């Protein structure tokens, strides 16, 4: 039934045809980015005569976000994303462990709180939050932005860790406890290494959210040099409204690193994803 016969080869071709609409936009972006200003009128469907990296270069050097260049925005994005993911893994894992292991009514309610926060949109609390951050003098600082992102993504992280840890057999922990290890050592030494798959998923999902988020970054660091890539792209579009080659060059800078990273880590991410979702 599952041998690689004629019918399967036919299906394989079918899927590659279905992949064309997926690839076409990427192709169009590339042909537009590589097209020199002299061939401006050409249709995007035809590859450029003599491709040039001029647009990429100009996008990279030109001041992207008004006060900040793309290279600076890239650094901001990397630092912010890394810090947020680190905080989430270090704080959410133990929380998930506690919630998964304590079966009391209270822990159920606390988990419910995280679940409720999971579907809470940011629009409702953004202004009061902005007020808090101003009073705390954190607006316009990278630390403030990191704190906000960590808070926003904490429910998802705790949710994933709890779900995964509920499926993890307790034998390993009990063995460590029998050897006299205290809860913190049990967690660090035994449990944390075991949750590597879900840590991968948490890092991927929350990292992607922080890297791609536009609105929160705009509100909290919009007019400073701590601006992240999406905001830089947005203001870049604001200024070069009619020049798609430049806009797509900016888009490639913003999306490039993630796609490349994803290309390498794709198998492990997928494995982690499936094992986590499957519990």
């Amino acid at each position, binding site marked *: 039934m599952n041998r690689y016969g004629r019918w399967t080869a036919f299906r394989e071709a079918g899927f590659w045809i279905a992949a064309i609409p997926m690839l076409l936009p990427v192709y169009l972006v590339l042909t537009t980015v590589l097209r020199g*200003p002299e061939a401006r009128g050409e249709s995007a469907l035809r590859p450029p005569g003599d491709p040039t990296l001029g647009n990429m270069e100009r996008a990279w050097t030109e001041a992207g976000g008004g006060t900040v260049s793309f290279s600076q925005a890239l650094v901001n994005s990397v630092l912010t994303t890394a810090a947020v993911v680190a905080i989430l893994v270090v704080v959410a894992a133990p929380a998930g462990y506690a919630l998964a292991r304590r079966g009391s009514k209270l822990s159920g309610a606390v988990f419910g709180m995280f*679940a409720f926060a999971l579907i809470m949109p940011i629009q409702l609390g953004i202004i009061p939050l902005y007020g808090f951050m101003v009073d705390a003098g954190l607006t316009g600082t990278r630390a403030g932005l990191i704190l906000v992102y960590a808070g926003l993504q904490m429910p998802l992280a705790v949710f994933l860790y709890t779900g995964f840890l509920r499926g993890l057999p307790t034998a390993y922990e009990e063995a460590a406890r029998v050897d006299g290890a205290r809860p913190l050592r049990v967690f660090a030494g035994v449990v944390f290494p075991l949750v590597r798959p879900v840590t991968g998923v948490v890092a991927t999902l929350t990292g992607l959210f922080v890297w791609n988020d536009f609105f929160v970054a705009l509100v909290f660091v919009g007019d400073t040099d701590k601006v992240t890539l999406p905001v830089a792209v947005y203001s870049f579009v604001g200024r070069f409204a009619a020049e798609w080659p430049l806009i797509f060059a900016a888009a490639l800078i913003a999306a490039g690193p993630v796609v490349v990273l994803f290309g390498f880590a794709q198998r492990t991410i997928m494995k982690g994803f499936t094992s986590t979702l499957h519990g």
Partner: protein
Amino acid sequence: MNIRGRALGCAAVAVALLAAAAGCGADAGGDGEIVVSVWDDGREESSIDVAARDFEKAHPDLTVTVQKNPFDQHLQALRRQLGAGRAPDVAMTVVGYGESGTVRALADKGLLADLGESPWAGRLPDTVAGAVGDGSEVYAFPVDSMAIGIVAKKGTDVPGTYTSMLTACRDAGRDGKTAFALGGHENSKMPHIVGFALAASTVYADDPGYGDKRLRDEVTFAGSDGWEQAVARFGEMRDAGCFGENAAGTTREATARALGDGDALMAVTPTVTLPLWQAAAPDAEFVMAPFPGDDDPDRVLVPAGASSGLVVPAKASDAGPGKQFVDFYAKHRARYAEIDGAVPALPDDGGGPRAPGYAAALEPYLRDGRTAPIMDQQWPNPELIARFDSGLVEMLTGRAEPADVLESMDAVWTSEAP
């Protein structure tokens, strides 16, 4: 893995931790530092950057930090900062009403310092006074000015009268071209510009004070014959094929390309948008001409006025440094204007040119005061401009009549800013 049903039951835990509402706190600028918040106008080095350095040279004890926001997020950011007590010392914003962070919208709520005693305050022409103050007080130094007219490549013969314009539209249609490139896409915000150009000659030709009367709720849009005629003429332009078929969905970039490639001959636009057209056709030379709003040349008026202005937020401590910077900028405004390639809204007494070089055709109108105000500067509720834009787009697709457009605008009219 699923979302536990009891999620809602636990909201009680969060309520128990209700914190104090957002109060106002210390302002952003330290003692010797002035924070100037402007929008990013695309130039590496705008006039504000130059002014900041000059000011620091003139006042060694003060340092100036320039913060730049993406253009269409700047007004919202300004309002957020003022609301949360993190206001800058000086801010660039749009004059009059029209959006949530403009001069009058913020001034009406007492958030801007009175600049009445500044040296330049005396020289405010009345066309600008209403947009930067409420008659008794002055809240902003007008920086740039703008005028609305027809932009086209040099050599295009721009029609002189309203009827000749309609025939020009039909001729263009026959050669497969579009007379006026118009972007109906929500983000392009172009249809109301045509509306203003028409209304200048139908409303303000007869009743220059219409704007103030509207503010005092003495008149309405639907009830004004001038507005009725303006919107009806928009319909006539549509029927003459002035805008081509797909105008409703076209983006601003697509209109720029259409004008650049010659598929469209002209566009109705404010003077400040030259970079947009130039970017789409770097080697073409563009000129601007008045929009023939009527057949009788005497009734043709050009919507014009100040566009941006510097304001000083009325902060708890003291607005001194901010005012100093604004006055310093005002003194050298002529020199800074060249840097920006813009026309100062407040012409120094020497009577310099009122319109940028490429819009020389508008100069006589501006000099002789044959102008109408930029209408939305007198529309407190920001939603009004959105209703006008979408109403005109509905007319493009034949789903609305002039009366519907004007009535939907009256429905959201408020005489003070929300």
